[in-house]
């Protein structure tokens, strides 16, 4: 891979290659999520005329009074028939500055499961509220889930400003209330924008209807929000994915450890430690198919070669001798349960997938179930049902090489798999390990 290093901020912006921002959208039904997404796609010319024509035709046939942009994202037959959104849909648009991936998470059913899924990879989450209604229970839940998943940037869009006479007072009341709530959740970066998704106010350019608002338009913010520092460039974590050993007559004695850098910066010459063995060595080279590189950092996929022949296989982790993850079989974690058929139960046995490691696990304890609306902890809870979140203690068959999720989203997150059905039934975020 040819890494194009980005010019410093003061340099000409046009020389800067496009980067990638992933964001998730959240909002209660009818807050205007589909309208906003449709507007973003339309105004960035990412909506195609045949898509629009198809949506218009279906809308007209169903007798909708307006072109229902929700049909753009509601791609499945059952969704269109029932007028609901079932699953996370991914949408794409780009401006000259950035490519955007939207995880559009529906609000009707399975909400927590979908939002947790969308938020797990998001750099930013966009929460919508209806200016007439202000914050509702769901807005708080959305904010909580974003903070649980450690989404680094949060944007609250106060929508339908046209229906409250573009009132500064209404906007500020909602913004203040939300800001106070977010402060309790330890949200790292919050921006609040008054918009009208329907009319396009403050979406691409600043609205003339709200001269009192001095912040950026939504798209301006999405294009410029600084995400480079969100990555952990301090703790070297390189989960070994696959060992490359060519069986060839031209390349002999080659042994390379392939993987994607989870965090930190790896350089040739660096002293490294391999876990769980604890052996140390040095990086001989960091390679890609396009040749060696001087440094590797997230999210690069590279191949690392070491100066010593040590026994390393998939699931091992390359780190630094003085900065290593925990090597632990007892894991304290927040778990979101995602299976409708069987709840998580104390004593339950499951498969677990963490970085490139797989293990089996048993649920030793369920400390409490969290009410995502009130944040109340129910310590009497005996199980976690679909869409419920709780704090658990797990014991694993082999040690995990783990960090706290709040410090490292890659080495701190795991999924739980039902060994009988092979379904992914839970998502976990490590709180501490010992």
């Amino acid at each position, binding site marked *: *891979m040819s*890494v*194009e*290093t*980005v010019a410093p*901020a003061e340099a000409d912006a046009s020389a800067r290659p496009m*980067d990638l921002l992933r964001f998730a959208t959240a909002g209660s039904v009818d807050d205007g999520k589909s309208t906003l997404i449709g507007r973003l796609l339309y105004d960035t*010319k990412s909506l*195609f*005329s*045949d*898509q629009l024509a*198809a949506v218009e035709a279906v809308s007209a046939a169903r007798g909708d009074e307006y072109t229902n942009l929700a049909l753009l*994202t*509601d*791609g*499945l*037959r*059952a969704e*269109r028939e029932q007028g609901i959104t*079932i*699953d996370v849909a*991914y*949408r*794409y648009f*780009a401006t000259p500055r950035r*490519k955007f*991936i939207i995880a559009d998470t529906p609000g009707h059913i399975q909400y927590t499961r979908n939002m*947790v*899924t969308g938020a797990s990879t998001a750099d930013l989450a966009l929460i919508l509220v209806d200016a007439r209604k202000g914050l509702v229970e769901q807005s708080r839940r959305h904010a909580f889930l974003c903070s649980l998943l450690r989404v680094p940037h949060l944007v609250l869009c106060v929508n339908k400003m046209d229906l409250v006479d573009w009132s500064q007072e209404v906007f500020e009341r909602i913004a203040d209330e939300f800001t106070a709530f977010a402060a309790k959740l330890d949200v790292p970066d919050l921006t609040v924008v008054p918009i009208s998704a329907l009319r396009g106010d403050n979406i691409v350019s600043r609205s003339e209807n709200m001269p009192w608002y001095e912040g950026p338009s939504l798209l301006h913010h999405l294009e410029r929000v600084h995400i*480079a520092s969100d*990555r952990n*460039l301090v703790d070297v974590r390189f989960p070994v*994915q*696959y060992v*490359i050993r*060519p069986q*060839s007559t031209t*390349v002999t004695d*080659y042994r390379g450890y*392939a993987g*994607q850098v989870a965090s930190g910066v790896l350089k040739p010459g660096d002293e490294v430690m391999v876990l769980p063995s604890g052996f140390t060595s040095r990086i001989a080279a960091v390679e890609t*198919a396009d040749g060696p590189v001087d440094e590797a*950092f997230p*999210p*690069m*996929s590279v191949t690392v070669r070491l100066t010593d022949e040590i026994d390393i296989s998939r699931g091992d982790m390359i780190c630094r001798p003085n900065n290593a993850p925990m090597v632990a079989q007892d894991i304290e974690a927040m778990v979101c349960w995602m299976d409708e058929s069987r709840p998580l139960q104390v004593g339950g046995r499951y*498969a677990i*997938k*963490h970085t*490139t490691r797989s293990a089996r696990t048993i649920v030793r304890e369920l400390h409490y179930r969290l009410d995502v609306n009130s944040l109340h902890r129910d310590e009497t809870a005996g199980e976690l049902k679909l869409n419920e979140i709780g704090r658990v203690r797990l014991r694993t068959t082999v040690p995990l090489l783990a960090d706290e999720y709040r410090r490292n*989203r*890659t080495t701190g*997150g795991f*999924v739980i*798999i039902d060994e009988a059905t*092979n*379904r*992914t039934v839970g*998502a976990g975020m490590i709180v501490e390990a010992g």
Partner: protein
Amino acid sequence: MTSPAAYQVSHLDALEAESIFVMREVVAEMERPVLLFSGGKDSIVMLRLAQKAFAPANIPFPVMHVDTGHNFPEVLDYRDQRVAELGLQLIVASVPEALNRGMVRESADGMRNRIQTPVLLDAVEKHRFDALFGGARRDEEKARAKERVFSFRDEFGQWDPKNQRPELWSLYNGRHHPGESIRVFPLSNWTELDVWHYIARERIPLPSIYYAHEREVIERDGMFYAVNEFFRARAGEQPFKAQVRYRTVGDASCTAAVRSDADTVEKVIEEVAATRITERGATRGDDRVSEAAMEDRKREGYF
């Protein structure tokens, strides 16, 4: 320490890194992967990513072409040349052969899109493949927009959109019972434009029909179809010569061309960036059947 800004990667590098990660996961965890290679641009890009993922070793899996028998000769030549260069094993799952054996029957409209599926599933069973790399992208079609990167298929190869495994972080669940399989889409997050930018950056050669050329076509339902042995003009359709290129390459009997003067990769990028019609909308007769044509085919085990 250098500032974080210095450690930024472009969107193409980020997409490439993600796709390589996905391909390595499959090879590390699955028993018998295969890459579906049609000679179309997405599968060509996928093959390049596979080269990169395992270099300096060879690509550690075979490729399979589901051959409808309605091919563009340029694409078949390209396929054979690429396979030879990379020293790959090519498996051809042939629809004409399946027709001869009586395994499938020609559909009334002569389109072979639907009858590809049993032929594909038959080959999967015969070779006991448990992971199939496909070049589908989520921006192509609204059912695809909801499909996972690791898409579970039951023993009949069927996709159940309402029963998909949640996919979090970069943790992909490829577990399956014998007979079941996983379709893997490493290009899920790429758009048509990303694919073209990557082809330009990597200087990847393509079959010539992706670039503007003169061809005898007829116009049907607003699309331009090449007149050839698989596609006959109907009464009243007047063949004429036009400058066209293909945006997608599928079965030659239902893939249409678009009018274009873009004869270089740079011009194609300009054209794709300015176009207001989706790739499949402009070129695929098979998607026009109904609102849910793609979803229905996927449920039956289509790519």
